[in-house]
C-alpha cells in the first residue's frame, strides 16, 4: 500500500495543468473564472484543442484514439480540467457514446462516428428519459417500428440536455411492445436530429437557463444501420453505458473551484464590518468543506484504483458513494458561493446584462454567477439516478439489505 502519488503521476498533473494554463482561450477562461457556464462554442473549441493533443477521448482504448492513460491519470486529467475551470468534455460523446460504440458498434459505425465524436464534429445528446418514466427507465414507450431498411420512430423524450445544441441523439426505443419483460424489446438507435419529424422544445430551468428539452418524434425515419447492438437488446447497451467507468462522477474539481471562488469573493465583500474571509463562521464552513473534499478525493482514488484493478470490468458499487458525496459537495459548495454573494446574488442579472448596450454594468463582475450554480445543481442529486436510488443500490449491492 502506497498512498502517495508517484513522481510520474505528480509530473503528469503538472503537464496537464500547464497545458490548460497555456492553451485555454482567454475569453473562455475569464467567463469560467467568474462562474459562468461555457458557451456552446467554448465547449467545441476547447474539446478540439484537447483532441488535437490526443486527450479528448481520454477514456477510449488507444486503437480508437484514446491516450492510453491509467485510471489515476484519467482522474487527474478530469480533475485538473474541472478545477481550472475549463469547459468539460461533452460527456455524451466521450463517456457515453464512445465506449458504447467501441463495445457494440459495427465497424462502419466506429469508423464514422468515433473520430467525429472525439472532435465534437457531432454534438450528441441522450434520449433515454420519458415523461412519467424518471428513475424507472424501463417503462419507456417511444416506439420504433421496422419498415424495410428503416425504423419509424414515434414518441417523446424529456430532460434531454443540450438537445437544442445537438446534431445527433442516441435513443432507447421500444421495438417489441409484446416482450415478456419490460427490459426486453428495447433497442438502442442513433438518430440524426435533422431528420424530418423531430421537434425540440426548450425546458427552462429554475436558474433561467435553457439546458433541457423535450424532444418529439413523429414518424421519424431512421436508417436500420443506425441500430447499435442487436434489435431488442438495447437494455444491455444502456446498462453498459450507465455502468461504465464513472471516474468523473463526483465532479470534485467543480466543488474545489467553487470553494476557491467563494474564498476569492469573500475577500471582496464585508460582513459585520470586516472582510467576509475573516469571519470565523465562514472560515469554519470552508474548513469543513475542505475536509470533506479531501476525504472524497481519497475515496475517489480508492474506487478508481479498484476499478482499474478489476480490469475495468465491474463497476464498483462504491461509485454510488462518489455520486452521493460528490453531489452533496457540489450542492454545499455552490450554496457557499451563493451565500457569499448575498443580496447582490439575488437579482436575475443575466437578463439585465443581456439588455445592456454600452452602459456600465449595475453590479460587480462577480455577482451574476453567484446563484445560478446553486439553483442548477439542485438537479445534481436528481439526475443519473437520484441520491435515494443510489442508497438503494448500496443497500442491494453492498449491504445485502
Amino acid at each position, binding site marked *: 500500500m502506497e498512498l502517495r502519488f508517484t513522481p510520474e503521476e505528480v509530473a503528469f498533473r503538472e503537464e496537464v495543468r500547464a497545458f490548460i494554463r497555456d492553451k485555454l482561450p482567454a475569453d473562455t477562461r475569464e467567463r469560467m473564472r467568474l462562474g459562468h457556464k461555457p458557451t456552446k462554442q467554448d465547449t467545441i473549441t476547447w474539446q478540439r484543442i484537447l483532441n488535437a493533443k490526443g486527450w479528448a477521448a481520454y477514456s477510449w482504448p488507444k486503437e480508437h484514439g484514446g491516450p492510453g492513460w491509467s485510471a489515476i491519470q484519467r482522474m487527474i486529467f478530469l480533475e485538473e480540467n474541472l478545477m481550472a475551470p475549463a469547459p468539460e468534455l461533452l460527456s455524451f460523446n466521450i463517456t457515453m457514446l464512445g465506449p458504447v460504440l467501441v463495445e457494440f458498434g459495427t465497424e462502419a459505425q466506429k469508423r464514422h462516428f468515433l473520430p467525429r465524436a472525439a472532435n465534437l464534429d457531432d454534438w450528441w445528446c441522450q434520449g433515454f428519459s420519458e415523461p412519467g418514466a424518471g428513475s424507472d427507465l424501463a417503462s419507456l414507450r417511444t416506439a420504433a417500428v421496422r419498415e424495410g431498411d428503416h425504423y419509424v420512430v414515434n414518441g417523446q423524450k424529456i430532460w434531454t440536455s443540450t438537445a437544442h445544441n445537438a446534431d445527433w441523439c442516441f435513443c432507447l426505443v421500444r421495438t417489441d411492445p409484446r416482450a415478456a419483460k419490460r427490459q426486453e424489446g428495447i433497442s438502442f438507435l442513433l438518430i440524426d436530429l435533422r431528420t424530418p419529424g423531430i421537434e425540440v422544445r426548450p425546458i427552462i430551468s429554475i436558474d433561467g437557463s435553457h439546458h*433541457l428539452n423535450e424532444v418529439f418524434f413523429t414518424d421519424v425515419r431512421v436508417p436500420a444501420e443506425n441500430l447499435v447492438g442487436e434489435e431488442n437488446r438495447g437494455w444491455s447497451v444502456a446498462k453498459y453505458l450507465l455502468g461504465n467507468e464513472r471516474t468523473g462522477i463526483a465532479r470534485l474539481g467543480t466543488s474545489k473551484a467553487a470553494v476557491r471562488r467563494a474564498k476569492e469573493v469573500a475577500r471582496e465583500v464585508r460582513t459585520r464590518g470586516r472582510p467576509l474571509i475573516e469571519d470565523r463562521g465562514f472560515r469554519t464552513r470552508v474548513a469543513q468543506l475542505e475536509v470533506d473534499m479531501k476525504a472524497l478525493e481519497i475515496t475517489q482514488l480508492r474506487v478508481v484504483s479498484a476499478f482499474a484493478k478489476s480490469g475495468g470490468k465491474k463497476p464498483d458499487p462504491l461509485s454510488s458513494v462518489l455520486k452521493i458525496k460528490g453531489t452533496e459537495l457540489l450542492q454545499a459548495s455552490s450554496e457557499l458561493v451563493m451565500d457569499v454573494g448575498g443580496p447582490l446574488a*439575488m437579482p436575475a442579472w443575466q437578463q*439585465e446584462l443581456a439588455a445592456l448596450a454600452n452602459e456600465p454594468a449595475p453590479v460587480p463582475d462577480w455577482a451574476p454567477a453567484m446563484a445560478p450554480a446553486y439553483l442548477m445543481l439542485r438537479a445534481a442529486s436528481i439526475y443519473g439516478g437520484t441520491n435515494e436510488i443510489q442508497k438503494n443500490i448500496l443497500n442491494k449491492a453492498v449491504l445485502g439489505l
Partner: protein
Amino acid sequence: MDFDLTDDQRLLTDSVTRLLADQYGFEQRKSLLKTPMGWSERLWSQYAELGLLGLPVPEEYGGFGGGPVDVMLLMQAFGRHLVLEPYLASVVLGGTAVRLAGDDAQREEILSGLAAGETKLAFAHGERQSRYDLTDVLTTATPDGGAYRLEGAKSVVLHGDCADRLVVSARTAGGRDEAEGISLFLVDAEAPGLARRGYALRDGTRAAELSLSNVPATLLGERDAALPVIERVVEAGIAATAAEVIGAMEAMQAMTLDYLKTRQQFGRPIGDNQALQHRAAEMLVAMEQGRSMAMLAAMMVEEPDAGERARNIARAKVGVGQAGRFVSQNAVQLHGGIGMTEEYAIGHFFRRVMVIEHLFGDTAYHLDRLADEVE
C-alpha cells in the same frame, strides 16, 4: 398565550384566501411575471379596497390599526400564492419607517395615501458594498435650505422601480460603520437627479438600483439618529417575510405530498417509499419549527425591550431560514426533474425562499450576531 384567531383575523384570512384562490392561480401569476411591471395594479386596488394596504396603518390615518399578528396572517397567505405586489416594500418597510419616524404631517399625508392605495413606498437603505451591515452607509446628505440634497447610490431596493415615494437613508454625520450620523429622508420618485434601474430578482419580484445625484430630499425623523428606526424597519421585514416563508412552505409541503401520492414509479406511487415518507415527516417537523419562529417574530415586533426584540427576531430569522432551506431543497428533490423547471410551481417557491433568506441578513449573519450574545 392564545393561539386562536380573533373574529376579525378569521375574517381577514378568509377574505384574502378567497381573493387569492380566485385571482392568483399559478398560470395567472405567470402572466403577471411577463408584464413589464411584474405585478398587478388591479389587484393592488383590490387590496386597498379590502383594507389590506392599511392593515398595519393606525386608524387615524385611514388604516385598520392592525398589529404584527394580522400582518403575519396576511403575509402567510401571500406566501402560499407567491404574491408579487409590493406589499413588503411599500406597506411593511416603507410604512413602518414613516409610521415610526414621520412627524404628524408626514404620517397623515403618506400613510393615508398608502392605505388608500394612492401612494407606493420603497425603503432604500442597502448599498452596493453594505451587504447586511445596517451601519454601512456611504450615501451622504447635505443641508440645503430647510431640506437636503442626497448623493450616492442604493442597491437592491425592493420594488424601488415602482414606488412613488422613497425612504432613503444617508449620512448626515460620521463615517462608514458608525452607528451615529445616519438619517432618513423622503425622496419623490420624480425628483431630479434620481435615476432608477429596475430589474427582476431571481424569484420574479422587482427591485432597483438607485443612483442619487444632488437629489432634493426631506428629513424623515430625527437627524443623525435613524439607526434604531432602520433596525425596527428591518425587524418588521424579517417578521413579515418569515410569515411569507411559512406560507410558501405550506404550499410546497402540500404539493410534495400530492406528488408523492400520485406520481407512479416502478408501478406504485413513489410515496410508498418509506425513505421518502420519512423525508416528508422531517419536512413537516422543520416547517412546524419554522412556523413557531415566525410566530415568535410576530410576537416580538412590538416588544419594547430592544435587546430582547433584536435577539428573538434574529433567532426567528435563523430558524425560518434553516427551515425554509430544508423544506424547499427537499421539495425540489422529491419532485425530481420537474421541480427544476420554470414551468412548475415548486421552483418558484424555492427561489422565493432563497431570495428571502438573503434579505435583511442571512442565516449565518444572524447566527453570528446571536453568538456575540451568548453568556
